[in-house]
């Protein structure tokens, strides 16, 4: 095939929402702002039962089955819980919102860079990032970033404060008032926060620092869920589950918080199908949802990022505004998107 003139074989974008790790503290709901104690990981050793599916030969023979089930299934895992006096989990992290999306971090083709820049400028002019920023703001307000810790929490309060050279503002949200299923909330506080996020994203090299301080009343001595570490060939160590900690404080990975923040994709085809829909999914080039083991935007259906980006960045129009939002949200997420020049 002939070599295309405006193909960038090296193309990369930096993330524009830079999340820190989330640090976990325990407290009580009444004294939540004054008494915070860092949560530590505990090691648990338990005698588990054999509960996996067994081979037909063992299943059918009661003697063999008994012998199998009598074996101790010893496990050592990390766990993290509030103390008996505490009923509230406190999660703290920061997000830096950066501008300069019109410049790729790396691009080795000037023609492509020029046409991309025009497309990105046109998007900023028309939409000013207001739709994306509103969704990011709602994901802060609804405390989606708590992940499993959000489930069953009685009360959740999210304090957000925004800071940069010109701004210093803060808001308090009652997360239970915001759904994680849709982004239809109209709210003055959300609008204020979203405007600031949008300003930073549309800027050339400005930034906005967000500090998030979240309290979730999960119940006395209840277990809480930091991130699990991914340790591949960890040798013969006995522990089967290793949780994340930073300087002896239980923590959530920045990547995990970032994923929750960009869970704003309601534009994939199956979203409206009540049977197949996964609700809002995280912004990913192929619409990947790890816990479902499924990619919701496949190249076969021409709904993936690359299909849109390749025409959009070369100056053509996309069929729907939602597609543009999706493409820009991917660029906010960042990544390496170079294509083969063959």
């Amino acid at each position: 095939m002939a070599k295309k003139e405006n193909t960038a074989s090296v193309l990369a974008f930096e993330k524009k929402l830079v999340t820190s790790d989330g640090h976990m503290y325990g407290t009580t709901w009444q004294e939540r702002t004054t008494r915070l104690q860092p949560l530590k990981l505990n090691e648990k050793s338990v005698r588990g039962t054999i509960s996996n599916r067994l081979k037909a030969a063992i299943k059918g023979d009661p003697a063999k089955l008994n012998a199998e089930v009598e074996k101790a299934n010893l496990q050592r895992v990390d766990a993290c819980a509030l103390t008996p006096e505490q009923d509230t989990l406190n999660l703290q992290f920061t997000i830096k919102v950066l501008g300069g999306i019109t410049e790729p971090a790396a691009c080795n083709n000037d023609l492509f860079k020029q046409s991309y820049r025009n497309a990105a400028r046109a998007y900023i002019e028309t939409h000013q990032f207001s739709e994306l920023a509103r969704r990011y703001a709602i994901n802060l307000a609804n405390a989606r970033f708590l992940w499993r810790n959000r489930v069953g929490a009685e009360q959740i309060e999210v304090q957000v404060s925004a800071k940069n050279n010109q701004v210093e503002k803060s808001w308090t949200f009652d997360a239970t008032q915001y759904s994680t299923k849709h982004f239809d909330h109209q709210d003055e506080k959300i609008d204020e926060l979203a405007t600031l996020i949008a300003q930073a994203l549309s800027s050339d090299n400005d930034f906005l620092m967000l500090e998030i301080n979240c309290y979730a009343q999960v119940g006395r001595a209840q277990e809480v869920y930091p991130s699990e570490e991914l340790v591949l060939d960890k040798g013969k160590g006995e522990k089967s589950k290793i949780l994340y900690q930073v300087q002896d404080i239980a923590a959530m990975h920045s990547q995990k918080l970032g994923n929750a923040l960009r869970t704003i994709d309601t534009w994939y085809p199956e979203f409206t199908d009540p049977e197949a829909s996964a609700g809002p999914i995280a912004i990913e080039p192929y619409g990947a949802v790890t816990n479902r083991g499924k990619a919701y935007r496949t190249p076969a259906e021409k709904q993936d990022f690359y299909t849109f980006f390749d025409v959009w960045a070369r100056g053509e129009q996309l069929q729907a505004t939602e597609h543009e939002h999706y493409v820009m949200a991917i660029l906010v997420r960042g990544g390496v998107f170079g294509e083969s020049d063959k």
Partner: protein
Amino acid sequence: MIGAVKKLLVIPHMKVHNANALSSPFTIGFPAMTAWLGAVHALQRQLNKQHIGVAFNAVGVISHDIDLQTYKGENDYVHSIVGTGNPLDKTGARSAFIEEARCHLDVSLVIEFDNITVDERASLVEQVTQLLHGKIKMASGDIKSFNTPICVNVTHGDEGELKKLQRLLMPGYALIERRDLMIAAMNEGQDALQALIDFTSVHYSCETDDTDKVTWFRHSKQVNGASAGWIVPIATGFYGISELAAAKNQRDPDTPHRFAESLVTLGEFKMPHRILCVEDMLWRYHTQGDYYLCQQSQFATPEPCDSGNEFE
């Protein structure tokens, strides 16, 4: 030299998140020296773009804390790298795990600058603050926070000014080049990799006395009968192994490409209060023939070495 004033920009306690700890193909740990000088050079270019004609000539790196993302279980013999799970591919299948060593850092940078007047310093600090927040990365890591940068003058030979700077950087460890150890070992006929391992390995041995009591000893290589200090392998530059040419899919289409190998030597983490003059902690670029090197001025004129190649 006495009386020479060094103008220094200090960026105290920069917290860097998920920095690249894979500094050379065979070492993991503190990010490579090229990463630090590169980031400072990028900072200078951004400042120059904004009409602040500052020149950053040398960089000192002080590590206050490094949290290397590895895991070692109770009975494990080796550390394993803590990885990151990556999104599924287009078929919904799990993508391959790629081992990337990462670390969280708390570092201070000491940058020797020139070419600006005293009046311009305030705007320099302001712009540096803005760029570090909004644009610059360090060793591929995100800058989470840092204390306000400050400009200080240190006159050569002035104890008081040096003490003031040292207090600013304590507690911490400045990264110092110890190529001299490599040169000495290789002059004694040791192979480069062997010399490197010799200085960084820790040996355990035991003795059994008459009463069957076992005593364990831990020792590492000594220099002149004393401990050589906190010695670590560090990556300090590159050695070109091909001619300048255009390569397919190179990152920058206008600059010729060259394949290179990283240069690894020994370094030492040394408390700043033990440093006798600022120059001892500063690193500078040095290019010569096939070498692209970050080095300290004590090595400015490379000493001859029997193997003919003291860097590797």
